[in-house]
């Protein structure tokens, strides 16, 4: 009975929102509006701002080209998390591009997965990529592999694939943890051209040190748009940049408030709504 008395009944904020979610929703809404504006502009043929060159993504085609010249496979690891991880979803867009390139140049494409859901999706993406390039017969389902759902068993299995199949190019883009350096260094010892990318900040230094190219944080999310070279998709990346500009302005405002009036909690209170 006491427990029930101690509970305060939850109430909606502004009639419809749950507590502490107004600003979060406003940010999503704002991003949605920015993307809608830029996508509409791109669809009506108007110019949208360019996005900067990303060396790691420019190198994707170069890596496939090198593997083609050497007659060796391209391997791709989309991190170790499941499909509910945004980084894994970002990696799927890149896989689609790489698989198409491999199908076009008749290069073997190896996808190594640690989670069964991305495995099932990647198999379908790769099959579709080969189909769209007019080479469905070249697709080998055994080249999309589920190795293990356990982190270090997966790492060991990847090392085994590196040793046996000897890929000429290795791409590791997605959510990585302690296995990042083991995989990147093994690839580096084997002389592979490597592109690493993650938004997990603690693993980024490892990719920067051990890979030829590193995609840092948000660059992996921009990858599928960047590689598609479509104005509509580029518009979504520019929308992202507009939101970052607003966040930057809030940070500057917060810094000024914290410096000029240290006790003022107005901005912090507003952001916690």
């Amino acid at each position, binding site marked *: 009975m006491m427990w029930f008395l101690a509970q305060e009944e939850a109430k909606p904020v502004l009639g419809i*929102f749950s507590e502490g*979610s107004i600003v979060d929703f406003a940010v999503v809404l704002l991003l949605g509006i920015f993307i809608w504006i830029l996508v509409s502009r791109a669809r009506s043929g108007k110019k949208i701002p360019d996005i900067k060159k990303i060396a790691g993504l420019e190198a994707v085609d170069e890596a496939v080209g090198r593997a083609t010249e050497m007659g060796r496979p391209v391997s791709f690891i989309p991190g170790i998390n499941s499909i509910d991880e945004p980084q894994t979803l970002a990696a799927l867009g890149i896989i689609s591009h790489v698989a198409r390139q491999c199908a076009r140049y008749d290069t073997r494409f190896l996808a190594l997965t640690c989670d069964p859901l991305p*495995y099932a999706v990647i198999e379908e993406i790769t099959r579709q990529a080969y189909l769209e390039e007019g080479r469905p017969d070249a697709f080998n389902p055994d080249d999309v592999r589920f190795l293990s759902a356990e982190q270090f068993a997966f790492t060991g299995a990847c090392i085994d694939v590196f040793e046996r199949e000897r890929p000429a190019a290795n791409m590791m883009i997605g959510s990585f943890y302690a296995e990042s350096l083991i995989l990147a260094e093994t690839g580096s010892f084997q002389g592979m051209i490597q592109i690493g990318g993650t938004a997990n900040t603690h693993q980024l230094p490892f990719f920067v*040190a051990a890979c030829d190219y590193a995609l840092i944080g948000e660059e992996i999310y921009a990858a599928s*748009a960047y590689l598609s070279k479509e104005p509509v998709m580029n518009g979504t990346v520019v929308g992202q940049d507009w939101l970052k500009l607003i966040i930057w302005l809030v940070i500057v405002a917060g810094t000024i408030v914290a410096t000029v009036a240290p006790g003022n909690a107005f901005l912090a209170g507003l952001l916690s709504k």
Partner: protein
Amino acid sequence: MRKEGPMIVTVLSSLVVVFSQYFFLGQQWDLMTPLNNWFQLSYAIALALGFVNLSAIHWKYIQRKREGWFYSIVLLLCMYGYLILGMIEKHTGVHFSWIYDNMYVPLGSAIFSLVAFFITSAAYRAFRVRTKEATILLVLALFVMLGRAPIGDAIWSGWSSFVNTWVMGTLNMAGMRAILIGAYVGAFATALRIMLGLERAHIGGTGTQ
């Protein structure tokens, strides 16, 4: 319909998540619980697919007597043996837990321990003084290493405090948070692209519309 069906499921699921996350009624109706249950169910089905894939690949290795085919036999025996043991004993079974704790865990730790050696080789390459940036990296790395080891404080009593508060807490933290903010915005944008149907790689499309 092969593409439209998954697209409709994606959009509806996304709307349920948004509704449950931000709106009061969504939280009251607890729509996320059935959605999470469906996710677990999909995972179990996909795990069975992965199991079949692993079996098929290693069975082929054995049939073709590929180099190292003996290890494929070991893998299949372990995989099916452990599966059968798990079905008999359930996941709390004594033998099932013993095998995991005394075989898998030490093997996993052995692979994890390789990180220590790989850090050395990666650090050697990263810190080779070839460019201005590598020199700055090397100098800062020396500062951090001295700050984290007792010898730093023995040289100068404020060393660890300098490293922890300024180098790690100010320089490093500012950079990390900048990357994180960008990554979160990027994740939002990716989610919106998928919700709006602009990005279709997850349903076997070519990645874009």
